[in-house]
């Protein structure tokens, strides 16, 4: 019994007396990588407990994500909206805000794009997708601005408000697709097809997977986010409010205004998911099209350490995971596609557990973190 206890303590004891001699740049990379490995390992352990061979599970995952050009294409297709939602959550995090509402924001964005395409179908080609994208961004911005304003001017925490807005967006989208803009050609809850000029180019080399211009747009947006946050005054103010609000206020920054701007930006970026889905894939808004891209975006942002480059890499990873989990459902007896949710949850837990990674940080930094306290928010 005491052996088990000392083993447990050895694993979980915070070892403040030693730290690993790793160069600082490596440490920033190591933590998410290790967290990823830990999360995957725990997830595979769960599949093993369910009666599946974990190696088989790993092989299926790997083949499903990268096996053929179609598979790679589908991975990229899933990764594109994840880049958008990951950036959305990351921008909010940089301002110290929790954007759990990316799901609702992307729903409103996609709905707006599909509505533009259905209401004005005869708009010609280069103008049409721009119009639809603008509609998507505006809708997402509004949906992000609401909780931003509520937080800034009424003090109500954005976590609950964004979650409520997710439900409200789902209800509104359902209403629009079933009553206002119903597709006359189909029984499904969806909007009518968009005009021909609205579709954007799809890359043919992916064997049928709908990888469209949305992917390069997503990468461009990642670049813009980097420029915004690290090369402009506004971006500096956003990060300042996120890291130390009291100091930012003392420096004359209006934290409320910054919060509204940050959540508006987050909402607008998430709204761009409509670009890939409506203009680059389905050609209409289908109720429930999103397999929780908004929530996976939270995991993407966390794993990517809220930096655009990290977000892109993490989005690719989670895209691969999502594609793999879908195939797992088919190829195993006990594992369902929800395993990807479990894996994401475990990865998020591993990344955010500071006590696990203390042995990576030098002693000085540990004491400093202890005194300042980690970035916690109040509800």
């Amino acid at each position, binding site marked *: 019994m005491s052996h088990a206890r000392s083993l447990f303590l050895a694993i979980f004891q915070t070892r403040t007396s030693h730290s690993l001699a790793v160069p600082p740049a490596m440490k920033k990379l190591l933590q998410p990588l290790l967290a990823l490995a830990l999360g995957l390992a725990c997830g595979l352990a769960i599949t093993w407990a369910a009666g599946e061979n974990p190696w088989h599970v790993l092989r299926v995952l790997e083949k499903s994500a990268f096996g053929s050009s179609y598979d790679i294409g589908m991975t990229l297709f899933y990764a594109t909206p994840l880049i958008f939602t990951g950036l959305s959550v990351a921008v909010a995090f940089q301002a110290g805000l929790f954007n759990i509402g990316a799901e609702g924001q992307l729903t409103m964005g996609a709905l707006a794009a599909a509505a533009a395409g259905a209401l004005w179908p005869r708009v010609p080609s280069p103008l049409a997708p721009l119009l639809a994208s603008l509609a998507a961004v505006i809708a997402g911005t509004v949906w992000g601005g609401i909780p931003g304003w509520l937080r800034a001017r009424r003090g109500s925490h954005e976590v609950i408000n964004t979650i409520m807005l997710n439900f409200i967006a789902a209800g509104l989208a359902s209403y629009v697709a079933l009553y206002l803009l119903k597709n006359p050609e189909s029984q499904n809850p969806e909007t009518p097809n968009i005009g021909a000029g609205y579709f954007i180019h799809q890359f043919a080399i992916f064997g049928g997977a709908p990888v469209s211009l949305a992917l390069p747009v997503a990468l461009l947006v990642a670049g813009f986010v980097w420029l915004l946050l690290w090369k402009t005054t506004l971006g500096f103010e956003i990060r300042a409010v996120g890291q130390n609000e009291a100091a930012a206020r003392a420096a004359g920054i209006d934290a409320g205004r910054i919060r509204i701007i940050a959540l508006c930006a987050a909402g607008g970026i998430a709204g761009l998911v409509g670009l890939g889905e409506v203009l680059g894939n389905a050609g209409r808004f289908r109720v429930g099209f999103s397999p929780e891209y908004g929530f996976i975006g939270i995991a993407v942002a966390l794993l990517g350490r809220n930096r655009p480059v990290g977000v892109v890499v993490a989005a690719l990873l989670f895209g691969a995971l999502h594609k793999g989990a879908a195939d797992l459902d088919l190829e195993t007896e006990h594992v369902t596609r929800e395993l990807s949710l479990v894996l994401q*949850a475990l990865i998020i837990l591993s990344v955010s557990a500071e006590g696990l990674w203390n042995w990576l940080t030098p002693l000085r930094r540990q004491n400093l973190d202890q005194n300042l306290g980690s970035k916690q928010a109040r509800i």
Partner: protein
Amino acid sequence: MLLQLLASTFRVSTPLLFAALGGLFSERAGVINIALEGLMLIGAFGAAVGTLATHSPWLGSILGAAAGVALAAVYGLFVIRLRANQIIAGMAINMLAFGLTPFLCKILYDVTGSTPAIPVTERFRSAPLYLSWAIVAACYLWLKYTAAGLRLTFAGEHPVALEAAGVRVNGMRWLAVLLSGALAGMGGAALSVCLSSSFSRNMTGGRGFMALAALIFGKWKPVPTALACLLFGFSEAVQIRLQGVSLWGHQPIPVQFIQILPYVVTMLVLAGFVGRSRPPKALGLPFRKP
């Protein structure tokens, strides 16, 4: 008709009430509990499984509460011991519950949607309702008049002083988190074994977050929180009654607008009336022994 609406309100508020009380203990001790949704969901699943296995709703509820405690233990590990960000870890626990429940459902019953239906004789009639209000009263008395209740409040307001007085703050927080798991699990049990007849996928539908909103609106005190739960329950009960009813004599109100009513009410409540609601001072800050 009004009496029926009132009775409906009380019935429908029961899961919210349990979850909100669970959140109360956790947050008064200083641990933000976003995971109420996931704890409720796994409690609902556990209770359904337990009732199907033992044919007794009480034993099923105990399994539900135990499932809540188990998940809350994972939450506590990451948030108290490993000092993860409480909001992020809470969302992760929710995702864990959302992912594990269909997974376990498939293993146990070979379907990923709902568990098999529980016959009406094996379900609760209104026992959870009375139990929930009894717990509200007990909670009020305990927090106000006992030393242990005071210590819990201290853990959330001024943990350093509590630790100096010789009480282990993190031990107190562990107890609070596990208790919140049990209560939220019980709330889930009230959902699946009392208000409906089985566990269905994602059946909590945001109630965990509404419970949190009720807690904030109720200023972290038991009785105002319970009344806030009644308010949300009312909007849910009204939603059920309003479906198909036409206002202004024209077409019936679209069902989606009625369905979003509880969520809109939650947002309005948080935005309009919270005002100077003051959370426990050390809420959200992990405690490290100085």
